[in-house]
């Protein structure tokens, strides 16, 4: 029997596979295909204080081995979330992480205050990296001081795990990650989407209504692995949740080898809806083949060349 469970700080997941924010709703839709409780966890779409309509369509566009999205944090706000989605989350037997974003420190704090008492929530993912919101988006995630202050300000408000999701669109992701950890973040999640755009040469218009969008999918796997590796190397004690470019179970395993203790799967689900479940199975098979008794042993098992 392989022990698939992994620990992310104080939180124990039954396996290392989590669905990424914004690609899975709260699990209702894909829940018709398989039971989300079979996963290690889910991260909800990002919730904001007030409802957000989101950006003008078209919001998505296919690119080489990936896609652009500019959803713009469309969501019905924390009130509707508590009313409509919390009862659904109650039934899930996996880690339920709520992703939150605010336009200022107060909004983050207010979100935590309203959500912290709910037993249906096992942790928070702080989205400081969504490139699609004018305020509260890039500004937060690209400045280590601001990220530090943000985590400082919300850390006292909850005992639940606080994960900080990092943007790759920075010169030095380690600086931002370190600031978050120094202020008390329990784990770092990397990466969010890369800033990107696409243009229709016939109409000369951007393919995305909002012009600027976020690139995800297998195209970005090498970038994501690099960031996970950098974070794990610089902060070996910090749990890293690897996100980005997972299109097959083996890609999740590369994230773990690079240093992730768990992974999140986002747009890889769109062409391959059963990918999260197949990834759980794939990690188990890998352990069998490699003679590992625990999935945890995969984390950071990268063999570097001797110089």
């Amino acid at each position, binding site marked *: 029997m392989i022990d698939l469970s992994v620990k992310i700080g104080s939180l124990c997941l039954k396996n290392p596979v989590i669905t990424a924010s*914004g*690609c*899975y*709703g709260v699990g*209702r*839709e*894909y829940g*018709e*295909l398989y039971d989300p409780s079979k996963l290690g966890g889910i991260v909800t*779409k990002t919730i904001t204080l007030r409802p957000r*309509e*989101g950006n*003008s*369509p*078209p*919001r*998505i*566009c*296919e*690119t*080489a*081995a*990936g*896609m652009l*999205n500019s*959803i713009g944090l*469309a969501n019905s706000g924390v009130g509707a979330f508590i009313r409509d989605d919390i009862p659904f989350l109650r039934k899930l037997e996996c880690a339920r992480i709520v992703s939150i974003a605010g336009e200022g420190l107060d909004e983050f704090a207010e979100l935590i205050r309203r959500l912290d008492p709910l037993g249906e929530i096992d942790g928070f993912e702080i989205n400081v990296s969504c490139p699609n919101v004018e305020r509260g988006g890039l500004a937060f995630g690209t400045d280590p001081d601001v990220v530090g202050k943000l985590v400082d300000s919300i850390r006292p408000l909850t005992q639940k795990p606080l994960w900080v999701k990092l943007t790759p669109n920075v010169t030095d992701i380690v600086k931002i990650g370190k600031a978050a950890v120094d202020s008390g973040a329990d784990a770092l999640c990397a990466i969010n989407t890369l800033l990107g755009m696409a243009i229709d040469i016939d109409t000369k218009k951007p393919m995305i209504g909002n012009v600027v969008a976020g690139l995800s*999918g*297998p*195209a970005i796997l090498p970038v994501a692995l690099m960031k996970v590796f950098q974070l794990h190397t610089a902060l070996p004690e910090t749990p890293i949740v690897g996100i980005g470019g997972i*299109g*097959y179970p083996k890609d999740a395993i590369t994230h773990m080898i690079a240093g992730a203790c768990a992974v999140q799967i986002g*747009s890889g*689900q*769109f*062409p*391959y*809806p*059963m990918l999260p479940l197949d990834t759980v199975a794939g990690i188990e098979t890998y352990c069998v083949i490699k003679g590992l008794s625990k999935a945890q042993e995969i984390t950071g098992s990268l063999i570097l060349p001797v110089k």
Partner: protein
Amino acid sequence: MPFDTLSEVTAIQQIAEGTFRMILEAPEIAREAMPGQFAMVGFNSPLFDPFLRRPLSFSSAEFGRVEFIVRVVGWGTALLSDLISGEQIPILGPLGTPFPRPEGGAILVGGGVGVAPLLFAGARWKNPILLYGEANSEKLCHMHSVPCEIIIATEDGSTGLSGYVTDGLREQIDKCGGTVFACGPVKMMRRAYEIAAEMGVECYVSLEARMACGVGACMGCVIQTKDGYKRVCKDGPVFDAAQIDWEALDD
């Protein structure tokens, strides 16, 4: 409830210029599919070429098989057209909200490959009438069997009535009343809605938008309605035409 299955291509045949009919073995999906619903049809390509699946409306679902009518407009549809019987592709469905079953009569208005879901409705409903329009007779889909009464129009008059498919709509409504169901180019659907609205009958349209998940999870496929953004994949693809913000729709 949708199923994600690897389905075998039973038959694939060209039925008009750049247009083919594809039949897949998919018992669970065929059992549940209803007119107006669609599937996310994928590829067999390990390196993500193309990355996303393609939304396609069912044009029929019976005896454990689902049928699509596909017009080649890009790389994805071209790849599908190259499939051969016996090959397997992943399909996720049935998805989306079907056409509401009409109480009284139904007038189906299909422009181009938009006729696909209406053929399915034509086969399932009681005595509908199908107005089917194409640019010219080369593009006109060759039907193996027509499920209901059909009136064909071509823009160049090469087959059937000459002109737009909506040109005959007023007369049809006059004749038998009933609800209008339209699928095709945005301009055509909008015209169908305007005529229906003028004449005081209901109109439902099946819209298109680029899709990623197809199940309602990603918020990628929204269109503007009078009630805010709605997901074409989950809240649609069928919408009450009166709810659509037609000004905001590109054609």
